[in-house]
């Protein structure tokens, strides 16, 4: 039966196809799991905007939240863009 292997060796074994498919599926399932505990991000963003507006007049897109993952570590990056000084001065007057 050895000669049959000549044909077989051209195509991947079905087990390695299964492994590749599963790796994609599992990575996807785990990706959405990791996101599941961060469902609060949009409402956190809204609340922060509200608090900041008590003190400064800022645009709707002034608060930016980003989550970066590096292995087990998660970093929540918060960016607030204040209006430039001239427009603040106008606002104050």
């Amino acid at each position, binding site marked *: 039966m050895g000669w049959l292997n000549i044909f077989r060796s051209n195509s991947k*074994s079905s*087990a*390695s196809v299964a*492994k590749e498919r*599963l*790796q994609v*599926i*599992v990575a996807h*399932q785990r990706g959405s799991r990791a996101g*599941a505990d961060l469902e609060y991000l949009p409402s956190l963003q809204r609340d922060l905007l509200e608090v900041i507006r008590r003190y400064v007049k800022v645009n709707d897109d002034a608060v930016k939240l980003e989550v970066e993952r590096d292995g087990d570590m998660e970093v929540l990056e918060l960016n607030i863009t204040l209006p430039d000084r001239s427009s603040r001065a106008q606002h104050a007057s």
Partner: protein
Amino acid sequence: MARIIVVTSGKGGVGKTTTSASFASGLALKGHKTVVIDFDVGLRNLDLIMGCERRVVFDFVNVINGEANLRQALIKDKRVENLSILAASQTRDKEALTEEGVKRVLDELAADYDYIVCDSPAGIERGALMAMRFADDALIVTNPEVSSVRDSDRVLGILASRTRRAESGEEPVREHLVVTRYAPGRVHQGEMLSLEDVAEILAIPLLGAVPESETVLQSSNAGVPVVLERDSEAGAAYADMVGRYLGEELPHRFIDYQKKGFFSRLFGG
């Protein structure tokens, strides 16, 4: 304080009940007081696999509802000392498993037993969630096959988020991979995922592999946990698994392809 072990998989038919019966029997054989509980309310089967179906009078749901006490519902195994079985109800539905009720029964058992093995039903509905809820350890029973592996990963997600340990922020549930129906010859042919593949995809440590074996069906026919069939490969694999769980260092057996020689093929060796 008892350690609670859930035997789970997501997918049905992969060997949860076979594993629960053998793992619990194996722990009891090692001298640990063990109770095994069937959480598959409405579709009970553990009693059949353990060979005590004719001795079920009261069940888990009766105890939860206060219609019987634990002493009345627990069935003492006739073959193995230190082993008791709590059967599932055949007539109720899974809604009967309330979280408070399950917790109360587990707390009461924990006072008397070293290990509580929870045989989960298939799926991720109430019965399965309740079986996982209070677990300290989880045996993830997986066949080396795509749908089983995917379902096992879903179950890992639930263990990491919806168990008591996950919610209280304690040390997470300890996960152990149990691969069943393993066929080293087919792995050798490239037709089946290898143990290494499954462990790598799920990223949990392998506790043991049970080879595909005729003995598993034969022992379920007879109502004898396969771990009691010491001469069979499957029985020995389960015994090894229990030993490893208890901290013994045992090499994995029956996982390598034994190429049959010309003579053994000729004479059916």
